[in-house]
């Protein structure tokens, strides 16, 4: 296996290595960036769940307003209804039977700001945001 990989690497040319290197660096940086941000700035305590369906914002649920036992929301879509489960520690989506790949369900729980669950066939996106009460990301003076 490793010998095979080494053979592949030896046959690569300069351009290949540049592409592989750039993809590795950008990919890792993109994945680590939110963690670094958390570590430096800290997780905002005013997290809100944004439920976006059929190209429009359907519902905004502040995490602070969720009761301890959690909350479930039904969201309609072209191929069926989604169940959005919001609990103190995170959010997940249960896909309808008609969803062939159920990628949104397999995404599992999301916990940090920016994390997104997407269901492409049902045109649904659910993500977490550290918004303030006015629905603004921030105010400059």
């Amino acid at each position, binding site marked *: 296996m490793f010998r095979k990989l080494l053979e*592949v690497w030896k*046959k*690569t*040319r*300069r*351009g*290949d*290595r540049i*592409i*592989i290197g750039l*993809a*590795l660096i*950008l*990919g*890792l*940086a*993109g*994945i680590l960036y939110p963690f670094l941000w958390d570590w430096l700035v800290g997780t905002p305590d005013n997290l809100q769940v944004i439920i*976006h369906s*059929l*190209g*429009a914002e359907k519902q905004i649920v502040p995490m602070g307003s969720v009761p301890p036992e959690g909350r479930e929301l039904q969201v309609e879509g072209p191929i069926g209804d989604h169940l959005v489960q919001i609990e103190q520690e995170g959010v997940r989506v249960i896909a309808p039977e008609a969803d062939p*790949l159920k*990628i*949104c369900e*397999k*995404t*599992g729980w999301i916990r940090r700001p*920016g*994390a*997104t669950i*997407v269901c*492409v*066939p049902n*045109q*649904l*996106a659910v*993500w977490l945001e550290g918004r303030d009460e006015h629905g603004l990301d921030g105010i400059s003076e």
Partner: protein
Amino acid sequence: MQGSKNSAATFSYQEGIRRLVLVGLLAAMGIILHFIESLLPAIAPVPGARLGLANIITLMALILLGMKGGGQVLFLRIFLGSLLGGTFMTLPFYLSLTGGVLAFFSMSLALFLGRDSFSLVGISILGALTHNLGQLIAVAFIIGSMGVFYYLPYLVLLAIPTGILVGMGARYSLQALPGRRT
């Protein structure tokens, strides 16, 4: 004089038939590979993460037939494939189209401008990256939110192993063809 003209005409006629057959064969193989891939389970719980087997065919077509023939194979594969699969003018069709076209142009650019600095592996990784980018742009438009770009780093990382596999697949397939070296 007459004879040489005739033989030239026969030659281009044969060349035309050869191209026609190749385009048809490659498009058919692309459709089948795309279908086989849809039967495989998703490789990661990330929207848009795929092996990209059909890209083997696009790469082979680009090398064997050039940009024109490669484009013909790509469009035949996407249009006929979606018609046969019943997804014509629906979401998977638009995703294949945007991803496929973007990957096609980026791979053509790498092939015809930098053949000396890129091997098939690098070109196929480039194709996988631009295919992902095209799909995410299409999804962002359809869903109407930029949230999907959250997955871009994961897709970029996954493009490396899948691109290497696809590039090797294309290389070995081309080597196996009679009278061809890459």
